[in-house]
């Protein structure tokens, strides 16, 4: 088992004819993901990497029974791409695009939540269920099938953590980046709810960063509802307040959202926090052997 994506995933790539879209379509296929369709308006009838291209998601769903979409279109067009997928009956939307204005995301998230549909991201590196399917831009070669679930607010840092886990001899069930923006479709707690029910997942790593209070909320949730071991890692200890660290969401506002308060929340709620990425893998290895 795994969460979000697996062998049953039938993927449609929105923006498949673009530079990133076509490159990662090849990478996802190489990993074994069932990419059934691509969409680029006006390019219907073409093929990319052997995948048929359609003008609209509804058409792709009708012809290929796609159930999951991954979005590679520029930020300006991404909200429309999300609405289109949600309207077409797609059940899971993974939005890689970054730079979407927050007030658009407020609308998008409200709209999607009202449908039977889940949004991951935007500004997500994607989701990988090791050995099952890879949806997004995470590098496939670092994963190994196993029992650790990883949820992260960032991209390359996730790779770093996953790489350490794999090198320690452990493997992963599902790993995902939920995106670094202030408003995102899926947060830590929703991932934990699914990991709780996933038989394959034995432990979870939460990779957080400065800004907001999702880590604090997740910590309370873990203490109250989650029965598997959880490990944490928080970045931004050295980040100065008021300065945005790349992500729109990674900012310490006033005295709120510091790494220190997040680490404290983790530790007070039974989540062991690694000092470094290597340390996280070490803690996991100690626990799971």
């Amino acid at each position, binding site marked *: 088992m795994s969460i979000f994506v697996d062998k049953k995933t039938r993927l449609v790539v929105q923006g498949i004819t673009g530079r*990133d879209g076509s490159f990662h379509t090849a990478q996802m296929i190489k990993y074994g993901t069932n990419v059934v369709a691509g969409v680029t308006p006006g390019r219907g009838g073409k093929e990319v990497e052997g995948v048929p291209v359609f003008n609209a998601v509804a058409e792709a769903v009708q012809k290929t029974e796609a159930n999951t979409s991954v979005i590679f279109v520029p*930020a*300006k067009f991404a909200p429309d791409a999300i609405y289109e997928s949600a309207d077409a009956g797609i059940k899971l939307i993974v939005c890689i695009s970054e*730079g*979407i*204005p*927050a*007030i658009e*995301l*407020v*609308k998008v*998230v*409200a*709209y999607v939540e009202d449908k039977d549909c889940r949004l991951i991201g935007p500004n997500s*590196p994607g989701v990988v269920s090791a050995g099952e399917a890879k949806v997004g*831009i*995470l*590098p496939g070669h670092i994963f190994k099938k196993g029992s650790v679930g990883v949820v*992260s*607010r*960032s*991209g*390359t*840092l996730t*790779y*770093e953590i996953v*790489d350490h886990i794999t090198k320690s001899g452990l493997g992963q069930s599902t790993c995902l980046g939920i995106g*670094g923006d*202030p*408003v995102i479709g899926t947060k830590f707690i929703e991932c934990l709810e699914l990991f709780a029910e996933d038989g394959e997942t034995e432990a979870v790593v939460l*990779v957080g*960063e*400065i800004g*907001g*209070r*999702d880590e604090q*909320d997740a910590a309370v949730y873990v203490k109250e509802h989650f029965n598997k071991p959880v490990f944490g890692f928080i*970045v*931004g*200890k*050295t*980040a*100065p307040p008021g*300065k*945005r*660290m*790349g*992500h*729109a*969401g*990674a900012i310490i*506002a*006033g*005295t*709120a959202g510091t*790494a220190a308060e997040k680490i404290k929340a983790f530790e007070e709620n039974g989540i062991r926090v690694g*000092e*470094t*990425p*290597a340390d996280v893998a070490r803690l996991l290895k100690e626990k799971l052997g």
Partner: protein
Amino acid sequence: MKVHEYQAKEIFKRFGIQTPKEKMCRTVEEVVEASKEIGIPCVIKAQVMVGGRGKAGGIKIAKNDTEVVEYAEAILGMDIKGISVKKVLVSEAVDIGSEAYLGIIVDRTEKKTVVMACKEGGVEIEEIARKKPEAIYKVYADSLLGLLPYKAREIGLFLYDDPKVAFECASIAAKLYTLFINLDSSLAEINPLVWDKSGRLIALDAKINFDDNGLFRHPDVEGMRDRESEDENELNAREKDLSYVRLTGNIGCVVNGAGLAMATMDLVKHFGGEPANFLDIGGSSSPEKVMNALEILLRDRNVKVIFFNIFGGITRCDDVANGILEAKKKLSIKQPIVARLTGTNEDKAMEILKEAGLIFANSMDDGAKKAIELLK
């Protein structure tokens, strides 16, 4: 992106929110001129984008001509938290009846836009949020319909007992919300909102921050950017699609990805070093981008060692390697470079860099330690 109080008030006026009679001035002469127009007493307010202006002596009430000159001279050129005051706002002295707080942000947890009101104005809202959160009244806008009139009224009736004033306040909340949405703000704040003794509801201070992701559709807002008061290197980095924040240490970090970049800074600190900066070269790399990154990094004279920490995914390690080679040639880099390059095309990168005189690291930890070692 932030703007000055006087700019925020220009925007307020455009959206129909009343502000005091006031004028932005750059010289003492302009202040004297403005004080005649606005009347004495008047308030002289330093225009700097940091909190605590008042405490720092950046806001003064001038009660006569002599004080106008005296305070103008004192405030213009004053240093507030490291920033030199170049502009002041000369403002009508409002006869304050009561002060309240009105602000709008996007609430990350609720994923909604929230209007916040507090009967105590002129104080820092974060302070109140921490000490007595129950004093802050929150109203969530509907994500698709916006701030419904009945909700704006709720805010007005919370702040004021007199229905007439409450409805006037509701109308201000509605205008502030329209401003927030129409301009892609990340914060729009009236603090204090003053009910003055002549019965006006007036925005005595104004603060607007903008969502950088929305700026592309508001060139007029982008045009308000005060380039003088921003770090030139950070500005430069943004223009080159890099994300750079200067810190006070001496180990320059070049990383792909914001999370990994923060992790790298933390790791340097963890092993006893001091990072000189946050620098995210972003996803898709190119040799040129790496060149630009190094150019910006090296303007900081404190940088004694450079630490590359790259985990290639979309980013190709050979692109980074080529960028380093070129930069070494063109920028005559004297500082030692520690390179940890893993992931996509790492072998090619090693091939490219093998004779470049770099110190290689096989992990983040290893790299951070080597960089610190080099400083000894």
